[in-house]
């Protein structure tokens, strides 16, 4: 455990070594929030308007919440994994008594906690100037469900990323393309990060609900908004929990096979 605390620590410092980078990244986030806010604020100028079952307050909460949830779930340091495999840098970790998967999870948590703490103050600041009509969930049970679903979402995404990155073992050059296809297109599209999934036709929603994707963004958001309650929330958490088990199994299998064909390139 202490091992990973140390990794957490050095990762944190690394983040600060790129101070300018980090600040730019945060500025970009704030600008993004401004942009999204003014866009949807304009669309919903008429306070009585309801589109796709979302009123002004609902959609603003969805898009702003989206930014926060996305930055927690998707902003992943482990995007580098595919690159580390193809450049052979994976070797550095394999010869050490450390779990590569846990190493990256730790680095992710480190970067996320840093980003989150900044995001918290930024959001507070924006809240004070924009004074948006933001829906604040007060039901403690739903908040707990929301937090739980966020943790599950992060686990799902990390596992999926690790599985997709393993393609690099067999296709060192094609790894990035596959990465892009799966992690960007399917995850962004099917997770609800682009639009709320409940605007899809019902039968499509049904199908999508049995894939791991909606549990990465859409589901946590719906729980927060109070659109998914009690038994439905429990069902969703069970499904994503099940997916975590399945994906974990697939990941260990794929990595075990991948490491056997790993060529430790570099020379």
């Amino acid at each position, binding site marked *: 455990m202490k091992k990973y605390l140390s*990794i957490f620590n050095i990762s944190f*410092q690394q983040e600060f070594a790129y101070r300018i980078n980090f600040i730019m990244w945060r500025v970009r986030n704030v600008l993004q929030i401004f942009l999204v806010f003014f866009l949807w604020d304009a669309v919903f100028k008429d306070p009585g308007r309801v589109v796709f079952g979302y009123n002004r307050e609902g959609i603003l909460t969805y898009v702003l919440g989206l930014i926060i949830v996305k930055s927690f779930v998707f902003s992943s340091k482990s995007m580098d994994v595919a690159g580390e495999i193809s450049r052979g840098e994976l070797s*550095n970790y394999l*010869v*050490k008594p450390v779990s590569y998967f846990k190493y990256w999870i730790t680095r992710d948590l480190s970067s996320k906690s840093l980003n989150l703490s900044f995001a918290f103050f930024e959001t507070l600041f924006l809240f004070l100037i924009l004074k948006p009509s933001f829906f604040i969930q007060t039901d403690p049970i739903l908040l707990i469900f929301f937090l739980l679903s966020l943790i599950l979402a992060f686990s799902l995404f990390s596992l999926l990323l690790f599985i997709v990155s393993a393609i690099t073992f067999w296709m060192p050059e094609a790894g990035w393309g596959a990465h892009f296809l799966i992690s960007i297109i399917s995850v962004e599209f099917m997770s609800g990060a682009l639009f709320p999934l409940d605007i899809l036709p019902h039968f499509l929603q049904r199908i999508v609900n049995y894939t791991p994707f909606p549990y990465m963004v859409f589901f946590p958001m719906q729980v927060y908004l109070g659109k998914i309650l009690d038994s439905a929330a429990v069902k969703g958490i069970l499904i994503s929990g099940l997916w975590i088990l399945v994906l974990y199994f697939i990941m260990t299998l794929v990595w075990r096979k991948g490491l056997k064909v790993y060529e*430790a390139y570099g020379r």
Partner: protein
Amino acid sequence: MVKFRIPMRQVLYFKLMDESSEKAILVEHLSKNFEVIEKKEGFLGSISSLVSAKKKVVRALKNASFSLREGELVGFIGPNGAGKTTALKVLSGLLYPTAGFVQVLGFDPWDKKPEFLKKIALVMGQKNQLWWDLPAQETFELNRAIYEIPKNKYKENLSELIELLQVRKLLNIQVRKLSLGQRMRLELVASLLHHPSVLFLDEPTIGLDVVAQQKIRDFIFDYNKRYKATIILTSHNMRDLIDLTKRIIVIDKGGIIFDGKLTDLVGEFAKEKIIKVYFSKEVDVRKLEGVGKLKRFDFPQAIISVPREASAVAAAELLQNFPIADLTIEEEAIEDIIRRVFRGEKIKKVRH
């Protein structure tokens, strides 16, 4: 009467344990194949190889066997792509062997057991583990945690390594700002903090200037002596081999073609002998060409290389036909032989 029966498998196991207790590294009939996809040239070529990829099997190691005793320092030499690095990678558990038996300190490297990994280190001259944007000190701290080195042991090891490699002033400088030689020394510190008893060094002096090379060499020598560490070293640097290793293993095209004392390499592989003569009077250089390959002529001295088996005849011929003050027959220099090995020139064992 009570009979104890030990199952056969158990007996074999004991036998194996017994052998491996003396051997730090045991490799038997090791083979490693790589599958390589052949790419056709150009844009259309890459598209067509997407559809119908031609696979080729590269046999990086073929049926290689060798073993090292504890505390031995052995050099691997051979031309580029001979399989030296592949062997080190199999021994440190990075590559999965296609066939054969590998044991390091009683472990199967592939299992990557933490107890095993804590006892070895793989240092590659062209790979770095130091965090680029932070001072090396931070990577050291990280390794302390990863290898679970107790605090006081860590302090002791660190100050010792700092002393041996003379890097005290470099600890708090961002790694990106260091020179290659400084970085390499710090890489060594990072790799050895946990005091590995088995060390795989892949081209540790590559790209370094002469002074830095010497520092690394002195250090390897010291580390081996001080801790009885078992070390395998690959290098293209002649001095590394001559200064450090008594025993060398020559690998070519994935197979081991020589395993023995560095000094015996000459006897095994020298195809030629060197005749040095001093003339008492001017001679016709062209006539000398008839005797053997004239390597240098600088009156009164001439150096001629001749096939081993013909050396006596050549010497006699020289003595008979030329005004000779002095004549010696010498073995080929070890450097020349190693150079030939590096060039991948076909070297065959010579029968005596």
